[in-house]
C-alpha cells in the first residue's frame, strides 16, 4: 500500500467508522440475533442456536399475511405510481399557463404528514354511524352498493392501502420526472419535428430514452421504500394491524419487538433478515435489468 493510498483511507476513516458503527454493526448484530433461539433482552441470554426462528416466522400465519400484503402492495403500487407520475409529469410539461400552480398542488402531499393524510383518507373511506364516507357516496351515486373500506373485505382494504401509498409517493416521483423531462435539450425535439416525428414518436424515441435513468432510479427506490412501509398501514387501519389483517413486514417486526405480543427480538430479527433478503434480491434484479435496458 503506497503513501497516497494510505492517505485516501485516512480521509475515509471518519465515514467508515460512522457507517460501520451505525449501519454495519447493527446489521451483523441482527443477523446474529436471528440465529439465537429465545433471546432475552433482560438477561442477555439465549437457549440455543439454529434456524428455529426462521422456521417459526415462516410458519406464523401473521407473518405470511404480512408478507402477502407487502408483496401485493409493492407489485401494485410501484408500477402504477411510476406510470401515473410519468403521465402527470408529461401533462405538466406540456402546459405552460398555471404549470407552477399545478406543480405546487401535486407536491402538497409530500410535505404533509403521513398521519394527516391518513385522516383525510379516513374521511374519504371510513364508515361511521353518521356517514358512509365520500367514496361510498360516490359509489351509491352510480348505483353500486356501499363497501366498508377500512374494516370490510380484504380487497377493499387493499385497494385503500394501495391508493394511499400511491398518493403519498406520487409527488416525489412527479418532482423527479418533471425535472428530468425539463432537462431534455429542446434542440432534440426541434430536430425531430423537422424530421417529421409526431408527438408520440418524440415521446417514445426521445423523451423516454433520455429520462430512462431517472425512471429506473424511481423504480428501484420505489421498491425499496414500498417494502419498508409501515406507518401508512397504521395511519389507515390503526395499530392492531394483525387483527385488521393488513400488517406489513416491517409492522410485523415492530410488533414482535414492542407490540402487545412483543418481546421476541429473535423472531423480529429473523423477519427483518427475510425482508432484507427479499429487498436485496429485487434490487439486484432491478439493477441488472436497468443496466441492460438503460440507454446511457
Amino acid at each position, binding site marked *: 500500500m503506497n503513501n497516497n493510498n494510505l492517505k485516501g483511507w485516512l480521509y475515509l476513516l471518519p465515514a467508515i467508522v460512522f457507517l460501520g458503527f451505525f449501519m454495519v454493526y447493527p446489521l451483523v448484530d441482527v443477523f446474529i440475533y436471528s440465529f439465537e433461539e429465545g433471546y432475552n433482552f433482560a438477561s442477555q441470554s439465549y437457549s440455543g442456536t439454529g434456524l428455529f426462528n426462521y422456521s417459526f416466522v415462516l410458519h406464523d400465519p401473521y407473518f405470511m399475511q404480512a408478507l402477502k400484503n407487502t408483496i401485493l402492495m409493492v407489485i401494485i403500487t410501484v408500477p402504477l405510481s411510476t406510470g401515473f407520475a410519468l403521465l402527470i409529469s408529461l401533462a405538466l410539461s406540456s402546459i405552460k399557463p398555471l404549470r407552477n400552480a399545478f406543480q405546487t398542488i401535486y407536491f402538497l402531499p409530500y410535505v404533509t404528514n403521513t398521519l394527516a393524510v391518513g385522516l383525510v383518507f379516513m374521511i374519504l373511506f371510513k364508515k361511521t354511524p353518521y356517514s358512509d364516507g365520500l367514496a361510498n357516496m360516490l359509489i351509491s351515486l352510480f348505483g353500486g352498493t356501499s363497501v366498508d373500506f377500512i374494516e370490510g373485505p380484504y380487497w377493499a382494504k387493499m385497494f385503500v392501502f394501495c391508493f394511499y401509498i400511491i398518493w403519498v409517493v406520487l409527488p416525489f416521483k412527479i418532482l423527479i420526472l418533471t425535472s428530468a423531462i425539463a432537462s431534455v435539450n429542446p*434542440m432534440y425535439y426541434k*430536430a425531430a*419535428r*423537422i424530421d*417529421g*416525428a*409526431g408527438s408520440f414518436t418524440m415521446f417514445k*424515441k426521445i423523451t423516454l430514452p433520455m429520462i430512462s435513468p431517472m425512471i429506473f432510479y424511481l423504480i428501484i427506490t420505489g421498491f425499496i421504500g414500498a417494502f419498508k412501509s409501515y406507518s401508512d398501514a397504521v395511519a389507515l387501519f390503526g395499530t392492531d394491524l394483525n387483527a385488521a389483517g393488513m400488517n406489513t413486514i416491517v409492522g410485523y417486526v415492530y410488533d414482535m419487538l414492542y407490540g402487545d405480543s412483543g418481546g421476541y427480538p429473535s423472531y423480529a430479527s429473523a423477519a427483518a433478515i427475510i425482508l432484507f433478503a427479499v429487498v436485496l434480491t429485487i434490487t439486484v434484479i432491478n439493477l441488472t435489468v436497468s443496466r441492460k435496458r438503460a440507454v*446511457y
Partner: protein
Amino acid sequence: MKVVLEHITKRFIDRNKKNKTELVAVSDMCLDIPDGKLIGLLGPSGCGKSTTLNIICGLEKPSSGKIFFGDDDVTDLPPENRGVGMVFQSYALYPHLTVRQNITFPLENLKGDKKLTKQEMNDRALGAAKLVQLDGYMERKPSELSGGQQQRVAIARALVKMPKVLLLDEPLSNLDARLRLQTREELRRIQKETGITTIFVTHDQEEAMSISDLIVVMKKAEVQQVGIPQDVYDDPKNLFVAQFLGTPPINVFAGEIREEKVYLGEDCILDAPGIEDKEVHVGIRPEGFIVDENGPLHCKIRVVEVMGRDTSIVSSHPVAETETIRSIIDSEDRPAATSGTVTFSLRKSKVLLFDMETEERIYPC
C-alpha cells in the same frame, strides 16, 4: 425547389426588460432563392440569421409575411410537413441512438405511400453515410465520434430523406481550421451532386464567399445586400457590407472632398468628378495599395510582415479611422526600410467613398 420570402418580419417579446418591449429579429425580409443554388446567409452575431432559418423550416412562425416553396405557400405549414432537412449549430444528434439509427430517424417518420421497409431504410442510410464518407461508422454512438464526424452524421441525417431544401446553421463553427476547410469543400461537393437548394448560415465571411453561389449580407435584422460573392465584394452597397467582407478588412479613412478631389488629410488621392464638397468615409481595400515613391498617400510604417508570396505593410495615417491600416503588396515591391515613411499610389477600383451620415456608397456610382 425555389424558396421565396415575401416581406418576412419576426418580432419577439423582449423579456429582459421590465416593461416588455418588442425586439425585431427579422425586418421586412424579401429574398428569392433560385432552385438548386447554395446561398450563404452572412452577418454578425444576433443579426437574425438563425431566426430566418427557423422561419424557413417552420420552427418559428413569422409575425408577418409569406414563405413559398416553389409555388406553394407554406407559411402555415408545420415543420414536420415542410420536408426540409436541417443541420443545427450543435448537431442535435440523438445521443442514445447509433449513427445508423440517427440517420434512419427521418425515414421512419415517413407515412403513407412513402413508407419504406427496414431494408430500404438501411440502404438509404448507408447511401447517405457513403456520401459523407462515414459508412464504416454505422454502429457507433455519437459520443464515440470526433466533432467532424458528428458533423457529417448530422449532414447525412439531413440529406437522407432527399429534402427539397437543406438548411445549415453554422454547421462548421465547432470544427478546427483544417477540418473546416475540408468539410466545407465536401459540403459544396455534396450540394453540387444532389442539387438541393441549400441555405448556409455563417458569420465567417470567407467561408460564405468561398462556397456560395449567392450571398446575403444581414445587419440588425435587415438584409443589406444580395449577390454573387465577388460582385458584393467589389460593389458593396454601404460601408457595413464593405467592412464585413474581405480579410484583412477594408481600411477606412475620414476623408474630405474639395473641388471634386478626394483628400485624406493633406494627401490628394483621387479625382471624384460630380461630387459636391463634403466629408466622406474613404474605404481602400488592402490590395489597392501600390508602393510608389511618387504616390500621393504618405503613411508611417509600423511593421512589415512578409508572408511568402505577399507582403503586408502595417502603417498608420493621421485620418485613418482605425489605429493601423493594412496593405498587401507584392513581395518584390517591399519598401527597403522597415521604418519611416512609405508612399503609395492607389488602384482606382479599390477605393470606395461612403456618405458620412448614411454610410451609403457614393463613389463609384
